[in-house]
């Protein structure tokens, strides 16, 4: 064949650009992912204005792992210099990521860490994120308190990491988890599951839940008229903040930010590295993971301030944080 064998001609390192960056996202059915993509697009536009970024190629569709493998291969064939992926699996994309890095393409995994060592994971520590709200809940219900947990999807690595950390916290604090249920990170399912749990576990003091389901869980608790007796962990999303705001002042909750802006942060990293910067190996956890610091959680203390700031963003807005091009320098070795 006459076509070049090396689609990613520039390779990594001191290329002069302009560069092409590919995005692979295998799930579009959530506002979180939409915000993630639009954060990336916003960040990219300034590089495009500068002429450093030629093209941002988006592979963004609902698909399964096989489909995402095809997405990544499409990006490789399109000749991108770097790939930022929100992977559908923590391990099943390793092979295709390896194919990409073998061809000199930089690969970043956001939101969900992957096990391939050639990939740089960028994101918050899910365990720490979960432990923060779990500690708060444990404090609220106290030793001997009885709670239930509404989880995401059993077996999903993020879910396992989160619930594992939360469980540890509860064990230490002497909090008893009566049962768990899967809400599939789906608000309405979370609401249904919580309704069932409320009926059959009348004695509970609190609920630990995560991402996307807290609103549904709280609605179920409010519908049962038990928001004053049952403590619910919340989430840092406008929809939840609004309902939180509508409750009486006695109602307490916590929302820990899981920023969709990680993708934009990764884009800044990618641009810097494509221009020749090297990652500071000493900052990597487990050899390939950059852990981003958590934002201050939303609690009753700062709720009014936060709400005033985000109210205008629409109900599906997720509290966000994006590291700027300057901020990401902290992770790089300058030469």
């Amino acid at each position, binding site marked *: 064949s006459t076509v070049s064998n090396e689609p990613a001609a520039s390779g990594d390192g001191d290329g002069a650009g302009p560069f092409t960056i590919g995005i692979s996202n295998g799930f579009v059915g959530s506002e979180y992912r939409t915000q993630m993509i639009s954060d990336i697009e916003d960040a990219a536009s300034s590089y495009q204005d500068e002429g450093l970024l030629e093209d941002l190629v988006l592979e963004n569709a609902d698909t399964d792992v096989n489909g995402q493998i095809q997405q990544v291969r499409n990006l490789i064939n399109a000749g991108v210099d770097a790939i930022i992926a929100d992977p559908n699996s923590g391990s099943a994309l390793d092979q295709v990521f390896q194919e990409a890095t073998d061809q000199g393409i930089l690969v970043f995994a956001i939101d969900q860490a992957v096990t391939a060592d050639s990939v740089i994971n960028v994101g918050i520590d899910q365990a720490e994120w979960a432990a923060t709200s779990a500690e708060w809940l444990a404090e609220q219900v106290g030793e001997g308190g009885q709670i239930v947990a509404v989880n995401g999807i059993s077996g999903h690595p993020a879910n396992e990491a989160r619930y594992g950390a939360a469980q540890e916290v509860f064990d230490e604090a002497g909090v008893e988890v009566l049962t*768990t249920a899967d809400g599939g990170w789906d608000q309405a399912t979370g609401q249904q599951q919580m309704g*069932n749990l409320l009926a059959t576990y009348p004695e509970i003091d609190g609920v630990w839940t995560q991402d996307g389901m807290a609103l549904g869980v709280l609605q179920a608790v409010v519908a049962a008229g038990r928001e004053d007796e049952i403590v619910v962990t919340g989430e840092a999303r406008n929809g939840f903040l609004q309902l939180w705001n509508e409750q009486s002042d006695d109602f307490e909750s916590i929302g820990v930010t899981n920023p969709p802006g990680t993708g934009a942060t990764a884009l800044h990293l990618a641009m810097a590295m494509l221009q020749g910067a090297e990652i500071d190996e000493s900052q990597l956890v487990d050899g390939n993971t950059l852990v981003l610091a958590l934002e201050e959680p939303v609690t009753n203390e700062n709720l009014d301030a936060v709400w005033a700031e985000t109210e205008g963003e629409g109900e599906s807005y997720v509290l966000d944080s994006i590291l700027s091009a300057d901020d990401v320098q902290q992770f790089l070795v300058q030469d």
Partner: protein
Amino acid sequence: MSRVVPILKDPVVVAALIAVLLIAIGGILRPGFASPDQIVDMLRVASFLGIIAIGQTIVVLSGGEGIDLSVGTVATLGAILASRTMAGDDAMIVPGVLLALGVAALIGLANGLGIVALKIPPFVMTLGMLGVVGGLILVVTGGRADGRAAPALVSLVNGRDVLGLPGILIVWLVLGGAVTLVLRRTVFGARLYAIGTSREAARLSGVPVRRVTVSAYVLSSLFAALGGIAMVGYSQQVFLNLADDLTLPSIAAVVIGGTLVAGGVGGYLGSAVGAIVLTVLTSLLTTLAMPEWARIVVQGVVLIALLAVYGRQRRLRA
């Protein structure tokens, strides 16, 4: 005695008994499960599936391998359109619902025309439509659904305002009753059963087969949208995949209710009971502390066992 046995062979009766049995088991294992409040709660949740299953029943009855795999996303789209229009304002309920129904009708029309005019098998036509509607949702919302149910809709679903029952149960009852009457007591119903039994014989009896078929798919989309709107009354805020997962359960509800997958035999009462059985089963599995994998397996096993009781097809050797 001789009268009891045939009744026990009626799928609707069997399904209803199974629902009662599941509630009883739940009540023994976890006392709160059989409490009136919890039962009302489960019925409330069953109503969304139940309303969507109305359309699915009509489509399955229409025969010709009739099935609608797009009901879940159509329900989501209906919920999104309605709730974006109402944006938490009671005055906008009617426009919101009408918009959702209008768009749903067009989708149903496209399904029906694809099936009768382009002769695409219903399974794959509606599978393709599932993708189209999913895409439409992204185009309409730009990936952020941002809609809020009007308070009146919320209290219809979440309140207990009518004789201590949620209004949505009354709505469900009325819709179910109406559709049962339509199936049994109208020209459309008679023609629907006719085309479901034999397209050719129906055509040669002067039945407008294509028109009835298309109507079935339009109705299916309309009821799906209604189910989606009811669901957003429950969740209050809309999100991108609100009702997507209700498609296969809606088919399961129809089959558990004794409607023949080949068409022409069955009715809505069974599907309604089927929706209740499925909801109660899911709830029961939630409240029993067991690992998630076991819940998933048990769900499948119970479904097969349920169908094995009476959902069996004819023997080859009569």
